[in-house]
């Protein structure tokens, strides 16, 4: 047996001893992780409640937002078409247009005192302590009301009738001070009777 062969045999013997030791180490090593690790996961699984997938939840949320936006939009449109307007929200600055029958055009504030001119002639009788705007019956219901300007006019019974508003007591000598909400096309959309009294000379 040559020296090289002898060395080779020794090496193989050493390696086989290493292999045997590795087998022994593998056999004697713990086969599993401590049981407490599993217990942690068992508890976690018990507390875990499967829910909808994240993607599904996102879609659901997006759908809810879109639905809310649609409801809000349509609600606003329907509300406007039905003629319900907020007296404060629809008050707008005076218009540049001054129709001949206009007594005065000014910004209407909730606590704006009646015009001095009217007061000077005749203390107006308040028809309604809190008058509200009502949609004019002959106005186009498909058009938005209160979209631009509110003007104050003195109107006779006949003019009120022409607009579709019938006074309780017809009196040709009576005049009405009313606020008209004009649409973008200049036509009246809604009316609010501010006061009534004797007919104003020169009024419409």
């Amino acid at each position, binding site marked *: 047996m040559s020296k090289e062969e002898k060395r080779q045999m020794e090496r193989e013997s050493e390696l086989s001893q290493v*292999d045997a030791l590795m087998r022994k180490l593998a056999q004697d*090593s713990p086969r599993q992780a401590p049981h407490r690790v*599993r217990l942690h996961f068992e508890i976690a699984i018990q507390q875990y409640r499967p829910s909808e997938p994240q993607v599904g939840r996102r879609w659901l949320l997006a759908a809810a937002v879109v639905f809310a936006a649609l409801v809000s939009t349509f609600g606003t449109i329907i509300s406007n078409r039905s003629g319900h307007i907020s007296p404060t929200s629809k008050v707008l600055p005076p218009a540049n247009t001054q129709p001949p029958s206009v007594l005065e055009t000014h910004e209407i504030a909730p606590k704006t005192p009646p015009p001095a001119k009217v007061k000077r002639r005749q203390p107006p009788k308040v028809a309604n302590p809190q008058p509200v705007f009502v949609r004019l019956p002959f106005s186009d219901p498909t058009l938005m009301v209160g979209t631009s300007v509110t003007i104050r006019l003195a109107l006779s019974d006949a003019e009120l009738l022409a607009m579709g508003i019938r006074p309780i007591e017809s009196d040709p000598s009576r005049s009405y001070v009313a606020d008209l909400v004009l649409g973008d096309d200049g036509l009246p959309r809604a009316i609010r009777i501010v006061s009534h009294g004797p007919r104003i000379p020169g009024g419409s």
Partner: protein
Amino acid sequence: MSAKKPPHDPVDEKRLLAALRERKGSAFLDLYDRYQGIIFRFLLHMTGNDTAAEELTQELFVSIFKSFEKDTVLAGFNAERGCLEAYLIGFARNLARRSHSRGQRWAPLVELDLSYQPTLVEEISSRSEVKRLRQAILDLPPAYREVVILCGLEERSYQDVAQILDRPVGTVASRFNRGRMFLAKRLGKSSPGLRPLGRLCAES
């Protein structure tokens, strides 16, 4: 050293994956029960510290559990590239390396203050030869250590280990044989063909 093929059933693995993706709690525990042993042993021999191995095993499965809750469980696993076990061992390997590179040095068992009852590993380590082998394995560079653990202690085939480590089969075989020779030398037996440790470290 004989390398036996690990039991691997692709159909069963697919079934487990499908159950995991349906977020069944029992599937997660099934996954844990199947693979915690190999993961823990691998980490135990990589770190030489059963506490660190336990923590890293837990970290691995906690990570999977988090993805399980988020419906992205094992999203990085590709069945075409290898089996689930290989994927998980690769995961554990990365955890061990990251943990080591973070500067965590695992104190060998001999340096631990064992105020509690010694574990089985510690009892094994008290036996001189196995203890020396264990220390010699820990002294191997990580690239050699993981091959020795998988091929020598876990008795995985070269092909499987090559797949797990994403290295050519020849590299795995070479590292395993050189690792064995290094172990033989460290155990006090001469091995003329063995390269010095510095060379091994440089290659890893």
